């Protein structure tokens, strides 16, 4: 089989799109961030809370090896890269002192900003997923330019993804809605799609005009909320446009998945699986190139336990217990990494050119704190899986000391084909060239 060339047509055939829909698709050109061979580059971030057990997570030497926590990823060590010693310095430097604000750092992880307020919950700038997906959207219209996914419960903290300062991107937690978002266009006849577009366009025009008038009568702070609302409507408008993209990739494994019947009560393992499975398909089918996952949330993951692992105590309590319950903590962490491994293996099982879809991607795992007992926002554990089209030199540990994590964010932009020299708040400029050499 020839996997050298990526065809969106082939992908959509794989999804069961009707032939009549195909004229909507434009010329097959390589667009957006692509590898030298013309395959799309993808970025996936996966964030959760309560830190890691440092003695187990970090390798004992400078050779990348896995302990209990990372065991589910053992097969991918040659494709992994662990930058050690990065701090969320922007939070450490915040006033008042936020050094132990581990439960309130999701809004800083991808924005490289920090609210100057104890237990601040607001992202103060655009997050890296938004920035990169916006750049990609300048040249290629994907079904979902950005997917913000998550597993949340009431009272959890704020997300990692921010469209702009103060404008959070709420994570999608409903697998059926996600399924519709990704695959709805494959079932409607084209005439009807066109009418739906016209209808929605008229409605959105009305709402935008209404919002403009409404906002003018509000105070400054409320007006920014209306501006955020208008931005959301403009995004919906963009999504009305038919996808034009044709990046690169093979379409192998791009099969519309079967998910549990709508309304089925899914326990956490089942929900995690379906969400990661859908993410894998969305990437393989080039429906999206940038995904964020917020798993166990900022706020401590209170109200979660892991009976399927035999860990019935509260997640947050287990994390705080430190060495006393380290064995349980590692079981939990390993289970979460096994969810990541599910995504990674599906990408790695998808041939693209001489490598796999994983080789053209980078999956970055991260946490809102260092370790469970500490809740400290320095020494934040990051792990990269996939070389992003050869940008990263993998199979290694790269040791840093007190380097701002903003540089990793800037590096991710560069890896994704968006050249920058800094990301996030001013004062944290630079990249991490050591990850590439």
């Amino acid at each position, binding site marked *: 089989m020839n996997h050298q060339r990526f065809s969106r047509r082939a992908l959509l055939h794989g999804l069961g799109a009707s032939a009549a829909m195909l004229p909507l698709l434009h010329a097959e050109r390589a667009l957006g961030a692509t590898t030298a061979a013309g395959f799309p580059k993808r970025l996936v971030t996966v964030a959760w809370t309560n830190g890691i057990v440092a003695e187990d997570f970090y390798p004992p030497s400078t050779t990348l090896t896995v302990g209990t926590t990372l065991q589910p990823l053992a097969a991918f060590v040659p494709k992994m890269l662990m930058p050690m010693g990065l701090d969320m310095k922007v939070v450490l430097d915040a006033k008042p002192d936020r050094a132990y604000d581990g439960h309130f750092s999701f809004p800083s992880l991808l924005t490289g900003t920090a609210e100057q307020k104890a237990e601040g919950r607001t992202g103060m700038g655009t997050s890296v997923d938004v920035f990169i997906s916006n750049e990609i959207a300048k040249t290629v219209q994907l079904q979902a330019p950005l997917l913000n996914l998550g597993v949340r419960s009431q009272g959890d903290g704020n997300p990692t993804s921010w469209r702009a300062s103060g404008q959070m991107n*709420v994570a999608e937690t*409903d697998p059926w809605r996600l399924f519709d978002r990704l695959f709805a266009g494959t079932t409607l006849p084209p005439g009807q799609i066109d009418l739906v577009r016209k209808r929605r366009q008229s*409605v959105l025009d009305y709402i935008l005009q209404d919002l403009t008038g409404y*906002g003018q009568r509000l*105070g400054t702070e*409320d007006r920014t909320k209306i501006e955020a609302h208008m931005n959301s409507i403009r995004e919906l408008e963009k999504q009305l446009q038919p996808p034009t993209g044709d990046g690169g990739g093979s379409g192998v494994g791009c099969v519309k998945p079967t998910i549990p019947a709508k309304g089925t009560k899914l326990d956490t393992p089942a929900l995690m699986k379906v969400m990661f499975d859908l993410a894998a398909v969305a990437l393989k089918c080039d429906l999206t190139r940038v995904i964020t996952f917020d798993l166990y949330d900022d706020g401590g993951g209170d109200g979660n336990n892991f*009976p399927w692992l035999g860990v019935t105590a509260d997640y947050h309590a287990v994390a705080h217990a430190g060495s006393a319950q380290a064995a349980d903590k590692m079981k939990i962490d390993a289970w979460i990494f096994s969810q990541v491994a599910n995504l990674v293996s599906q990408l790695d099982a998808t041939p693209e050119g001489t490598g796999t879809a994983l080789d053209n991607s980078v999956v970055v795992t991260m946490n809102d704190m260092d370790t469970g007992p500490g809740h400290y926002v320095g020494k934040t554990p990051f792990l990269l899986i996939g070389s992003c089209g050869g940008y990263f030199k993998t199979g290694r540990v790269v040791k840093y000391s007190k380097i701002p994590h903003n540089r990793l964010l800037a590096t991710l932009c560069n890896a994704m084909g968006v050249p920058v020299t800094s990301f996030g708040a001013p004062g944290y400029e630079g990249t991490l060239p050591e990850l590439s050499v």
Partner: protein
Amino acid sequence: MPLRRLNRREYNNTVRDLLGNTTKPADAFPLDQQEGFIFRRADLVSLLDADVLRTAAESAAAAADVATLAPCSGGATGEEMCARTFITSFGLKAYRRPLLPDELTRLVGVYQAARTTVTLDYAGAIRMVIESMLQSPAFVYRRELGPVAPTMEGNVARLGPYELASRLSYFLWGSMPDKALFDAAAAGKLASDADVEAQARRMVADPKARDTVASFFGEWLNLDQVAERPKDTMLYPEFTDELKAAMMTETRDFVSSVVFDGDGRLETVLTAPYSFINPSLAKLYGMTSTGATPQKTNLDPTQRSGLLTQAGFLTVTGATNGSNPVKRGRKVLERLLCGTLPPPPPNVPPPKAASAGGTTRERFAEHSQNACALGCHTLMDPIGFGFENYDGIGRYRTTDNGKPVDAASQLTLDGTSQSFKNAVELTKLLSNSNDAHSCFVKQWTRFALSRAETDADQASINAATSFFTKGNGSVRELLVGVALSRTFRYRSLAVGEMP
């Protein structure tokens, strides 16, 4: 009140009252963002929010009964006239105030585009108009900016009649105004204290207020989160979905019964020796089952005394595998007494596990000595020890880890230190305290305004408190008192707002 969007409950209720749609579409919305606030609220519309609002609007419009909402017998030429009539009358309800001339013009424009560009028939075009209105900021946000500029009195704005009608209905019903309230607004009958009081009393007596009161209690003490609290199923095999649902139903049945069918008093909510239980709850309470559906049942008054000794509260504040004096004490301190705690210090080691031996109280007492002796645990734990007679899901116990339970403790109420032997005595002390009563008024004010109070609200909170006291501590009277308070009927002009 800062700009607030209809939260999930308000959205569901509003489409029910506006369109007769009882499908609760907002149950599928992302969870309301609370941002550290006790009560459910929503404001900023993210992309996902905009998307689900569109889906909900499309489904509600598709299901709308056009023949009833917008009847038209005028033939093709009269249809636009019918549409115009519909937009005017429906617009008043959907936007909770009369349409602005420009809004009417543009909505007629939507209707025309629906007929021409989208090639819809009359009913289809009416649906498209409904779809547009349900996504308009005038529907989505609770800020009724009518055609008239706010009336300034000093540096605050008096709410206009439609604004006040909407604030009343979302406070007392979690929904849009009904016809009587709209009519009162139109007739200028929401201006005097007597007018507002008459409407508030009418609304409190309406069945829709029951859901509001039940929701308040659910959010106030997190009693609606029973199902989200993990428990050790080895220890508590009976903690099934059925029992969780029974606990939440118990709370709602109990508080609505006391508030609406009984004497209505907070004191009764906090001390009543009865509840509404089904067979699985009866088992948990050590009672014999009384029937398949929840029945009003007298409980053992030496074991149970009001809401705080019921399974829901004890479950949400319990640990996964036992009691939790810290969480229980903290909930009472923060939610019932409006006390505040300093943030926890870093690197707090947890209390020892049960396997280390000793009762929960002994292990937690040691923990508070170690961790932050005077800072916070001395505020929380002594209150929480009062609940040591209840395990993690609210079952009564006299021993813990093989040793006798000691639930005697003390707390500071109304400025003096008071002792109690157990939760029954603790709840009686709370139910009689001024601290608990004034905090309760503050919580209802937060709920009504969907924001934290400021110094400027204190006079209004005091006024509502005396209304509450004069009304013999009845929650129904308190609701009327909050509706009458100045802070409820006025608002500050926001920075940058053009009056």
